[in-house]
């Protein structure tokens, strides 16, 4: 199946990786403290299984979900629990694990996900920390307990976000093709429908996964947000009330396959280091949740200007301090100017070609090939004034403005009628970027989804 996403935007930002294969060849291994942040798994109510000082091995559960006790998050490395950091009301913010040389190999329970009933496979994936890497729509949460046969599963095999890296299949290992096929085979047993594999035209993923029963290849063309599941689901089979779909990325599908083959899976990733504030954008190889200090060592420009470190991309990533960590599901770090230390005289009247905009009211912008925007809102927050701004960047058949209003009004029926089950906060990222009124749309949608879930359960 071929689909073309028209409503979107490709921003040309400075600080990208120009030659991916050269950067991969040049990539350095990074080790350091790793952290698991339960906040990155919406719907996961964390309870600790370890305490400070405990030794853990890579793949050992460190947190479990209070709402779904079989679901765990696992340690990405062999090491010792450095800290269980808690916030307000003792909510667990993260579990930090420092690497220690692996001692004797510990015998581990084997979960045969390559066979057995769907319910058994799901509970095995939950124990292995793999199920939490999936997202469930509606509500954009981790899969909930008791959900076994979903309507469809979407595997997103490319990332269209600014500066993001879409890795070739070979980068996931020599056996990646085999793993991907067996991963898809496992997933195809968990759905009554199909496993949709969304990739770009000409991607090797298509030919590799083409023959797997129950798999349908979706070749996606068009700008961001074409790599987001929301856009692809809308173009293939929109979610109706009462239906459930799961979404995951290529790396997770490969890991599922790796486990099915070898009964263990790896935690190493290629991480793209990008952004205009890096002296040398490049690629590093590091485990999940690696500390940014180690990851960004020596690559950030040595200038006095404030910088914003984003774990992820500029649209949906998480703001982190220098002491932060790589957050799930991102395999990208973007560093841009913060901008809170600049004074721009009458910036609203500026005709400078460096102004980044999706609008046509910056006539000289075409002179620039690459932009280096900072994190400022570029204006004050206002009521919704301009109309149709969100629709232009929403490849989903909803009326975003009215949905946002229904959410703000806490109108449950309105949200349902206007299609809240079809969306995730990330689907509103581009609209939030383009919004003249500077409204926090993603946060509004996140709050709306959480509110609705609480109301209806």
């Amino acid at each position: 199946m071929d689909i073309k996403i028209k409503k979107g935007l490709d921003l040309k930002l400075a600080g990208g990786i120009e030659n991916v294969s050269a950067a991969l060849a040049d990539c350095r291994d990074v080790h350091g403290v790793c952290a698991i942040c339960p906040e990155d798994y919406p719907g996961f109510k964390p309870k600790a299984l370890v305490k400070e000082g405990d030794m853990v091995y890579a793949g050992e559960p460190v947190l479990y979900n209070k709402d779904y006790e079989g679901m765990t998050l696992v340690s990405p490395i062999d090491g010792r629990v450095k800290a269980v950091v808690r916030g307000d009301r003792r909510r667990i913010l993260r579990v930090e694990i420092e690497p220690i040389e692996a001692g004797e190999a510990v015998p581990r329970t084997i979960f045969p996900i390559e066979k057995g009933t769907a319910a058994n496979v799901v509970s095995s994936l939950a124990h292995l920390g793999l199920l939490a890497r999936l997202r469930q729509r509606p509500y954009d949460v981790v899969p909930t307990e008791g959900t076994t046969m979903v309507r469809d599963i979407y595997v997103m095999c490319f990332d269209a976000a600014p500066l993001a890296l879409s890795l070739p299949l070979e980068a996931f290992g020599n056996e990646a093709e085999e793993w991907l096929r067996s991963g898809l085979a496992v997933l195809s047993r968990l759905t009554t429908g199909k496993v949709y594999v969304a990739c770009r035209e000409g991607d090797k993923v298509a030919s590799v996964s083409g023959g797997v029963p129950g798999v349908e290849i979706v070749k996606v063309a068009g700008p961001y947000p074409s790599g987001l599941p929301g856009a692809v689901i809308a173009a293939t089979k929109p979610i109706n009330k009462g239906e459930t779909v799961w979404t995951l990325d290529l790396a997770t599908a490969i890991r599922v396959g790796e486990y099915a083959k070898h009964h263990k899976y790896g935690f190493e990733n290629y991480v793209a280091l990008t952004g205009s504030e890096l002296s040398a954008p490049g690629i590093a190889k590091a485990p999940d949740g690696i500390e940014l200090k180690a990851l960004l060592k020596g690559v950030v420009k040595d200038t006095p200007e404030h910088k914003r470190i984003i774990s992820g991309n500029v649209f949906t990533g998480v703001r982190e301090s220098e002491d932060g960590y790589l957050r799930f599901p991102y395999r990208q770090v973007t560093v841009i100017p913060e901008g809170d230390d600049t004074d721009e005289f009458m910036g609203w009247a500026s005709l400078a070609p460096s102004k980044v905009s999706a609008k046509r009211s910056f006539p000289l912008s075409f002179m620039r090939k690459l932009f280096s925007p900072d994190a400022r809102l570029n204006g004050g927050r206002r009521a919704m004034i301009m109309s149709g701004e969100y629709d232009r960047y929403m490849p989903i058949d909803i009326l975003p403005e009215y949905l946002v209003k229904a959410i703000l009004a806490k109108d449950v029926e309105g949200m349902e009628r206007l299609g809240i089950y079809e969306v995730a906060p990330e689907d509103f990222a581009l609209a939030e970027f383009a919004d003249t009124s500077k409204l926090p749309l993603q946060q509004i949608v996140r709050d709306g989804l959480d509110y609705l879930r609480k109301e209806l359960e």
Partner: protein
Amino acid sequence: MASLRKYLDKIKPQFEPGGKYQALQSVFEGFESFLYSPRTTSAGRYTTHIHDSIDSKRTMTIVILALLPCFVFGMYNIGYQHWLAAGANPEGAFWSLLFYGFLTVLPRLVVSYVVGLGIEFVVAQWRHEEIQEGFLVTGILIPMICPPEVSLWMLAVATAFSVIFVKEVFGGTGYNLLNVALVTRAFLFFAYPAHMSGDKVFVATGQPFGFGPEVADGFTCATPLGQISQGTLDVSGVGGHVLSTWDAFLGLMPGCMGETSTLFILIGGVLLMLAGIASWRVMLTVFAGALFMGWVANIFATPTYPMASVEPWHQLLYGGLAFAAVFMATDPVTSARTTKGKYVYGFLTGVIAVLIRTYNNGYPEGAMLAVLLMNCFAPLIDWCVVEANARRRLARLVRSQK
């Protein structure tokens, strides 16, 4: 520029709560954010980290820029009509005509801004909010859609009424149901009809600050629409010369300052469309609706309604229709907000404007009433579009369950 920033930083504490001028905090912040872009950066767990450079200040500024060609021509035309009315030769007196127009409009512009912005400042401070930019456009629109010599106190009363009761009580810019500038005009029209219509008010006859030639007492000249509604199909300008189509397109005829020149309105419209600020869907459909209604009326023309005999496309040249299409109906807050709704909204605005001016002899012009009426219907039109979207979703659900 650094010294200005330093100075602002120095005086800022005095405007903060507890400071000497805390009652002027909103005003100070308004000026500060006008001079320097706010340093606020995106925050929160779910946020985009970069934002488009456009904001409502720039949006409003572009609308004002688009209005300027009309505004400058309007000043010139006020002078031009005055010179004709005085029996003087306007040829070669370009700067005098412009200056006369400037002197005529200046007090109205000042009154409109002082009253409107004054209320905005007070309300912003009262609500502890940032000052909003909406009135920057409204303030220049008001003198452009009123007769050139509307009296200042009437203008002040009407502006205050509409800013308070049409905008602020609904919550400020972005929440109003009706177009604020048009309500100002409607208020004047219904409260002081003798000063807002007829054949005495659309040509400036006074001598602002003693400038300009004198016009004889009792001078009258109706606008083209006024003449047609009285049954005169060959419209004439001030002094009795026949008004050509070209004159009408250029705007050299009596009327409200901003509304006479279709040419300069179109220039503004093109600018708005190029900048992507105003909806081309609304603009084009208003024109389409007006042409359609003009054509229907023309087919069934009777002497009872002389306006029906006008060539359909001439409807676009006279009166406030073009101005309403480009600058009034396109107001994003009060027009239909859904894409499909905009087509319906625009088309009906055009139809109703011509319908009123053709079949209601009491009102030679219907653009203002048409836009205000459609402002009221815009939420209903949007409701239908939203409902259609919801029904489509429901139908999909039913299909999937079969």
